[in-house]
């Protein structure tokens, strides 16, 4: 099948699937907490409901506040469309490698943080300031992961890394393991999940992401929530494609290959979503100034992954 068609399918797929992934995480968490929980399709209804409400904007807000939801959503969506999910045969794949991917997510963060400061309230500032702290720790860690993956696979393009892993390039590798651990820690931070941030918190002083979008309502809030959902799906797809890409369709694989790839992608995503729910239920949120320990640990794991590569080469 044509790379452009597959690309279009993926662009639609990531947005269509994202609310379900979030809904699934919430459902599993409720069950683990002993509640019945809402249907996994509830986020679709939430977003539709938000779209039907009028948007309220503070008097002091500028156009940045109104543009930010769309910029954030578009940046995350773009990032999610260049990562191989079910097939590596994507027309846009060469437009951005892992480094560009980090930067695309940085656009979303930059605008969300600015939007948080735009109204001129204390909570927005708290959120923006903490978000930038998390980013300044998480981004280097993520780039270290890219570094070690680029050393192992000889490329920074996710599509090519998938090809390398699928062709049996790596076995059970210490460096891959360390990179995976670092990547998981970064993903938790980037998505504002426990223990870094609690997406369900109702206590303003502990909010990070929620504090930045506190002033949003109506369609703007829908876009911000949507961006967060797509980002969660994106990181699951990214972890899946870098460390467990089995079943993914390659170029020239035919319709069967694509169906298998789609099934494998859905399976991977829901396994990871369930794992996330279990992990979040089992752990408590940490204090703001312990972020540095957590994410500094991720950075060191990333560095260690690189060093271990040298060691294994030398031995």
């Amino acid at each position: 099948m044509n790379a452009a068609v597959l690309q279009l399918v993926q662009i639609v797929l990531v947005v269509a699937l994202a609310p379900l992934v979030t809904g699934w995480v919430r459902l599993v968490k409720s069950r683990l907490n002993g509640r019945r929980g809402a249907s996994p399709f509830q986020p679709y209804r939430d977003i539709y409901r938000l779209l039907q409400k009028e948007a309220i904007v503070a008097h002091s807000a500028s156009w940045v506040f109104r543009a930010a939801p769309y910029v954030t959503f578009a940046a995350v969506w773009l990032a999610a469309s260049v990562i191989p999910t079910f097939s590596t045969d994507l027309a846009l794949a060469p437009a951005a490698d892992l480094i560009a991917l980090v930067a695309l997510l940085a656009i979303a963060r930059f605008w969300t943080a600015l939007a948080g400061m735009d109204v001129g309230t204390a909570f927005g500032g708290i959120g923006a300031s903490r978000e930038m702290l998390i980013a300044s720790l998480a981004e280097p860690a993520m780039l270290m992961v890219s570094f070690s993956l680029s050393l192992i696979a000889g490329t920074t393009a996710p599509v090519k890394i998938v090809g390398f892993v699928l062709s049996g390039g790596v076995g059970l590798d210490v460096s891959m393991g360390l990179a995976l651990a670092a990547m998981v820690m970064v993903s938790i931070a980037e998505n504002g999940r426990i223990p870094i941030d609690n997406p369900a918190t109702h206590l303003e002083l502990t909010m990070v992401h929620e504090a930045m979008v506190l002033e949003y309502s109506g369609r703007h809030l829908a876009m911000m929530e949507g961006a967060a959902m797509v980002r969660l799906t994106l990181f699951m797809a990214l972890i899946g494609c870098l460390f467990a890409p089995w079943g993914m369709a390659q170029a020239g694989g035919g319709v069967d290959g694509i169906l298998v790839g789609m099934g494998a992608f859905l399976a991977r995503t829901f396994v990871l979503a369930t794992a996330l729910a279990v992990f979040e239920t089992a752990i408590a949120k940490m204090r703001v100034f312990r972020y540095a320990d957590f994410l500094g640990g991720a950075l060191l794991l990333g560095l260690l992954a690189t060093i271990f590569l040298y060691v294994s080469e030398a031995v």
Partner: protein
Amino acid sequence: MLIAAAFATLPALSLFALLFGRRAWSHAVVYLGCLGASLCLLAGGLVHLGGHPGAAPTLVLPFGLPWVEAHFRLDNLSALFMVIVDLSAAAASAFGIAYGSHVPEPRRVTPFFPLFLFGMNGVLVADDAFMFLVAWEFMSLASWALVLADHTRAENRKAAMVYLTMAGFGTFCLLPCFGLMAGPGGDYTFAAMRVHELAPTAGFLVVLLVLLGAGSKAGLVPLHAWLPLAHPAAPSHVSALMSGVMTKVALYGLIRVLFDLHGEVGWQWGAAMMVVGGVTAVLGVLYAVLQDDLKVLLAYSTVENIGVAVIGLGLALAFKDSGEPALAALALVAGLYHALNHSIFKSLLFLGTGAILTATGEKSLNALGGLLNRMPWTGAAFLVGAAAISALPPLNGFVSEWLIFQSLFQGPSLPHWAMKFGVPVVGALLALAAALAAACFVRAYGVAFLGRPRSEAARGAVEVPAVMRLTLVVLAALCVLLGAMPVVVTDSLSGVIAPLIGVHFPVSADLGWPWLSPVGATRGSYSGTVLVMVGALMFGAAILAVHGLGVRTLRRAAAWDCGHVEDNPASQYTGDSFAQPLRRVFAATPFRARETVEMPEPGDLGPARHTVHLIDPVWQGLYVSLGRLVDAIADQVNRLQFLTVRRYLLMMFATLVLLLLVVAVRQP
């Protein structure tokens, strides 16, 4: 011809400013003249790069020292830096037409402004050490005079003193550097230096001296101390040039010596530069994120960006010496690209600060706020600059950082273990610097332009005159253009570095035009052009979908703020509160950041005070102790002033014997 005419115009303009400086209109004439001259030089540089890429016209003029004529030469490297310098020079001159009358004493600015441009361009075309140093000093002294323009403020006088000392130190290092390269033959033309083979010791000293000399001008840590003092002290359009461009002239000096004149620099120097660059980048941005004064913040961020460019240069040296010319070309292109980008967005940000100063008279973040609603053009242009310097795609800052990362990721292919282990660490430092830069500029933009005004001055701000707005918008457009069309830039840079490295840089070798795939298609690629187009489509699709599916009404209301709305703008987050988590996490060790809170007794209505103590490790550790050492030595030497004649005679005799001994021992 055009270039020569433009060169001649600049000193003439300076003279004109001296003669007619009393008339108010003369300042506009000078800036218009500078604008014309820099546009001519810009055109000259562009034509040279585009039209005759291989040619290097030379010119010999019969002045200078009696036995050395003045040699000039315009090769690709000079032409590229001429484009960098004169692009920002044109912007600063255009800005100056309107801004020049806002500085306290315009007559202290206009005579030196053309001379400053003259000096910077002179360094680029000089083809012998004498002309190079003369032009270098023109640049240093003219900018020193500009730093002193507002001489009534004590901190500006201190800044000028520190700057003069550091500039003197820089030239003091460059002088023996060129002397060593000329060798005992004493031929000071660059052509002779290119063929002159350096002995190992002399080669070592040349690299060390040029790193100290040009590095102090560029602002490499620990020689950066003058930069955040001097750059903010000058009027904003001059700050833009000092920060955006003069540091690039210093980089030009580094590249000219290390890649062209010296020729055989060992990979160890490349590794050292890479590490110095990484440390400079992180320390620079760490300082920047803690500043309250917008101009000081920008000056520190210049230190960071110079560090980033120097990482590229160091990598290029290491690759070149290890027989990897293609990778050396990539790293050098990345470094030059970053230099070009930084000159554009730093000029934009400094001129934007000039616009803020014009509108409010304030440059302290904690006195600003809400400017975007009052200055929409300046605000939008500044936002582009802030996003570009934070290395966000699709703007230009990201492309050069991406290229530097790509070349860093190739570092482990080098055979040296020092490089293998150094490269990941420098990569982490670079990533940290990029992330902190984003935090720094979210803070700067968010506090200055967003939120509610924190002072009456900010509340009453109005948009600046059309000339200033136009300048800012043109620079912002360049940031977008150079980021969205990276292949065009890398193609022309490839012509610049070919003579220095010896290979052409295959930018888009495997994938074709809009794709940047420097190390081959399988190693990773980027396309700003495609991302812009698809991103714009997605942005449009998101808006259309949302407006199609839902309601379009929008209501303005009071801020929600969880129900406790506070009208006092002081309740907003300030720059200091924004920086607090970063300060605690990153600055606790290097700057020994400490916070003290003084709470009034219960029942006391006095305000609580929160004070932050920071210690600048470089200033305290290096400069202050150096000053103490000099003082102590001076005290000791001072005793020699009060000796008897007999003792002086004895000392002269002893010196004579010593010198004779030296001569006798060294006699073959």
